[in-house]
């Protein structure tokens, strides 16, 4: 008789499915975002021209496939003769940097306040939630313009402004999560084991709300990018001559009536693709990471 001594019976590990093969994974949006990120990172190498220097002799060239276009400027040139393709490529960098960092700033503020509010409760909760309510009562874009007018437009300021405008959604959602988390048995065990509130919030609560924060971040990315473009369009965003997509649309809008469509439509398409992709990816993540919606 063979006696097998296997005190530890581990469940046979099933090889994890690669996440891009999972059901419903938005492959095309993910590829688009990846492509934009790639372009943003390697903008210096990819862009055929300097995005900020043009030549008035070559202004308002149409895209290559249109009459009068040339392969030298694939997507044409703008009102001061700058290459539109190069500007779009560098614009991707601005959108990516501003979008991601602003989402991180908003997420950081919102998550922190949400955890403190939800876990401590009492007056801290009251103060933070009333602040959130007040904040939500302000129209986001107007508020952003107001702040930009005060501090003046610069890339860093735009990031901080967007972070300050959009933290409320995080605070609300995270607080809700924390309220249910703090009733969980493992949090009660940590209390009984003598952990301080700080330790519990940091070690037991925060890691458990990261999922929701990530989902929110992807969904917020689109909103933040659109707001950045709007601010730039309105002239209180990224200061010219830096190439930002919103700014390019603003610059080109006068040409729209006289047929210089590429100056507005192309950056518009870029914004739309990026926001749409971020939203589709965010929706998928939400379903995958939200225990209530997850199909097992």
């Amino acid at each position: 008789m063979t006696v097998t001594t296997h005190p530890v019976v581990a469940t046979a590990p099933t090889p994890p499915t690669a996440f891009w093969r999972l059901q419903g994974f938005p492959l095309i949006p993910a590829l688009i975002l990846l492509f934009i990120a790639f372009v943003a990172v390697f903008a210096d190498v990819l862009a055929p021209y300097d995005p900020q220097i043009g030549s008035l002799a070559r202004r308002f060239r149409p895209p290559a496939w249109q009459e009068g276009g040339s392969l030298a400027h694939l997507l044409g040139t703008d009102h001061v003769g700058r290459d539109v393709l190069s500007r779009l490529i560098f614009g991707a960098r601005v959108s990516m940097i501003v979008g991601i960092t602003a989402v991180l700033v908003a997420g950081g503020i919102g998550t922190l306040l949400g955890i403190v509010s939800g876990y401590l409760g009492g007056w801290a909760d009251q103060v933070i939630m009333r602040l959130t309510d007040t904040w939500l009562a302000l129209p986001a874009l107007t508020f952003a313009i107001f702040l930009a007018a005060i501090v003046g437009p610069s890339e860093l300021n735009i990031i901080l402004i967007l972070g300050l405008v959009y933290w409320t959604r995080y605070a609300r959602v995270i607080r809700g999560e924390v309220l249910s988390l703090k009733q969980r048995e493992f949090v009660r065990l940590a209390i009984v084991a003598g952990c301080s509130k700080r330790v519990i919030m940091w070690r037991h609560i925060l890691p458990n709300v990261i999922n929701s924060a990530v989902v929110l971040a992807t969904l917020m990315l689109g909103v933040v990018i659109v707001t950045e473009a709007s601010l730039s369009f309105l002239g209180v965003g990224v200061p010219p001559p830096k190439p930002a997509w919103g700014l390019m649309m603003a610059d080109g809008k006068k040409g729209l009536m006289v047929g210089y469509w590429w100056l507005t439509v192309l950056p518009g398409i870029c914004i739309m693709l990026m926001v749409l992709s971020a939203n589709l990816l965010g929706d998928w993540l939400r379903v995958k990471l939200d225990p209530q919606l997850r199909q097992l």
Partner: protein
Amino acid sequence: MSSEPLLSLENLSAHYVSQQGSRVVRAVDEVTLSLSAGGTLGIVGESGSGKSTLALTILRLLPPAARIVSGRMMFEGENLLDKSDTEMRHVRGKRIAMILQDPMASLNPLFSIGNQVGEPVRVHEGASRANAWKRAVGLLKAVRIASPETRVTQFPHEMSGGMRQRIVGAIGISCEPRLLIADEPTTSLDLTIQAQYLNLLRDLQREHGLALIFITHNLGIVAKMCDQLAVMYAGRVVEQGPVSQIFSAPVHPYTKALLGSIPRMTDNRDHLTAIEGQPPDLASLPPGCAFAPRCAMAFARCRVEAPPEFAVDEGRTARCWLAAPDAEAKATMMRSSVA
């Protein structure tokens, strides 16, 4: 037995007060109990009798609406009620540990076992990550988990229920507490695992000289685990004393009824003994003995005046007029029948 008990509660009351102050729920009322070092005290009672609130009171972890209104809690010669919140935090987990009702959910799904078992050591003794990890391995060995070196690196979802429970036990004893409070730690386990776990707890108690407070509604567990027993009803301890004595000769009618409701093989199969009536609403207790409305032996005085704790024997008390010294009891019965 040492003369000085490890933990002694004197006239401890904890009440919930509604916001307007109109409703007062006496969740723990005038509880006097003591537990010597290394001893085991069982606390039994129906749901809502204040057992769990009593445990939370000892750790001073009552919800904000509840307040400890009177009494003293002496633990190792110090009154726990005099301690600041920070001092109290260093009592919890270090000197008094607790195992919660649902140990299955007591582990954080996102951290490895080693991380969680070592956490109290890091929090209370400032141990380094590496030292805490080593302690965790030793603790898993102590709760008889096979191959602890691999187990510490695993996560809660990789463990069976019984194993998770033993890990919670390991967390409980990680800082070598003097007192371990187990609040119905086996209700979520199946019977064979229950027995194993109880044996483990008893061994741990013996090896580490732990005192144990065992909160349960299972009298079988009390018989197996405990040497002292306190029966709670409506926030009060109605009878307490050595388990063997209470089991062989219960004094309080409620204790009798509880013991009588344990099903036996010899019982009539068509009938289960139950205690008639419902536990009282703690917010509006009857003026006399809280058990009187359900008590078969209640007499007039029971309904107007709550009985104090009478000494029944050496180290044994009961809150029942029937336990009153004979002469007085007869006299009162006479008086009340006249009235």
